[in-house]
């Protein structure tokens, strides 16, 4: 039990949990916290003090088959336990469906610094038309827009594969969803 969790009020507890969740990282993109990704939808605490305080964290998957979700679920549990919250429940919600628009601006900057092009605003893709114009995606290395898509599917469900025509570097694009 970490000192201090005994007597804090519900709002304080919820705020503290939001801070704790900032330390839970996406296992596949470890520069991003789950808050940067926008997958934590709500934190709910009961009024009880100390270890009896019931905590519920509502999370939503980026993609239906994202294998990181089970790891993230366990990581949230561990982090909350470390801070004295022993009565925790992690609930998956599917609606409304996650969108890249929920990614934080800070998250997008971190992605770019990590070498992954951050998602463009959503209205640009997710259209069913075949051979539609590929999005203009900025190269995270040299900032050129002269890039082309190699594949709509990449190393994880949430990424597409691009290459820069100027600096020739291949890079991942966190595709808009």
């Amino acid at each position, binding site marked *: 039990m970490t000192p201090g969790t005994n007597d804090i009020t519900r709002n304080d507890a919820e705020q503290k949990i939001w801070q704790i969740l900032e330390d839970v990282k996406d296992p596949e993109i470890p520069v991003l916290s789950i808050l940067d990704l926008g997958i934590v939808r709500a934190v709910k605490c009961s009024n009880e003090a100390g270890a009896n305080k019931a905590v519920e964290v509502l999370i939503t*998957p980026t*993609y*239906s*088959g*994202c*294998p990181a979700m*089970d790891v993230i*679920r366990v990581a949230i549990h561990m982090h909350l336990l470390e801070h004295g919250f022993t009565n925790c429940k*992690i*609930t*998956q*919600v*599917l*609606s*409304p*469906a*996650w969108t890249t628009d929920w990614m934080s601006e800070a998250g997008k900057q971190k992605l770019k610094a990590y070498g992954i092009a951050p998602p463009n605003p959503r209205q640009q893709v*997710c*259209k*069913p*038309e*075949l*051979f*539609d114009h590929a999005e203009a995606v900025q190269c995270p290395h040299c900032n050129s827009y002269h890039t082309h898509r*190699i*594949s*709509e*599917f*990449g*190393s994880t*469900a949430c990424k597409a*594969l691009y290459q820069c025509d100027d600096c020739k570097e291949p890079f991942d694009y966190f595709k808009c*969803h």
Partner: protein
Amino acid sequence: MSNESPTTGFLTGNLPSAAAVDYLFYLADSALILSQRNSEWCGHGPVLEQDIAITNISLDLLGQARNFYQHAATIINQTAQQPTKEITEDDLAFLRSEREFKNLLLVEQPNGDWAQTILRQYFFSQFQLLLYRQLQNHNDPQIAAIAAKSVKETTYHVRWSGEWVIRLGDGTEESHNRMETALDKLWAYTGELFVPADYEKETGIDLLKLKEEWLTKVKAVFAEATLALPAVQEGAFMQIGGKEGRHTEYLGYILAEMQYLQRAYPGAKW
């Protein structure tokens, strides 16, 4: 797969729970079996990028199947008369037999060559996209939520597989011929998509409208792919039965491989 049951929203709308569970099995099994089939390509794709693409699609389908199985498990556990043990998504995927699987016959067909895999994917994804769009308004909020989530992923699948149908059909003589052979093999399995099983009749899905929309989309893609769509006539012979558990010879082999570990070592975890 996780043993927790993380879903919320347990209403089954107006469907009697048995029919609701059967319908969820149909949706889940179809996604799972195609996922399993596509995963056979892992490490064998024609080029690395397409190997990654087909296995990504596999993963999306597996996720959709899990969501439907979890919801089915919730309903089963809530309506069990004499609950003995809690049913999980794993039980539903690994411990049901061939006759209990309600997947479409189309998805259990062998991968064949790349043309056959692509055409199977396109037929299915185009159908799934139209179906999920309707299911987004389903009166069971959890089915609606899963469908709304899956629509986005399926949009990528339709675009990817549709573009490949055009590339191969309108490609070389060799690729065109292979698409025609694939069409000969698969067309007879497309009729089943639009023939409702008993448990499907109360879902509120208009399969006739779906069929028209599907044919319009497929015709447009085939025209660009310079492929001739088989004549669609009333009463033309089509294979059916998968939705009711009567399968082609292939499903047994798929399940034997997929379920082996849980059958041989019940409850094994890693």
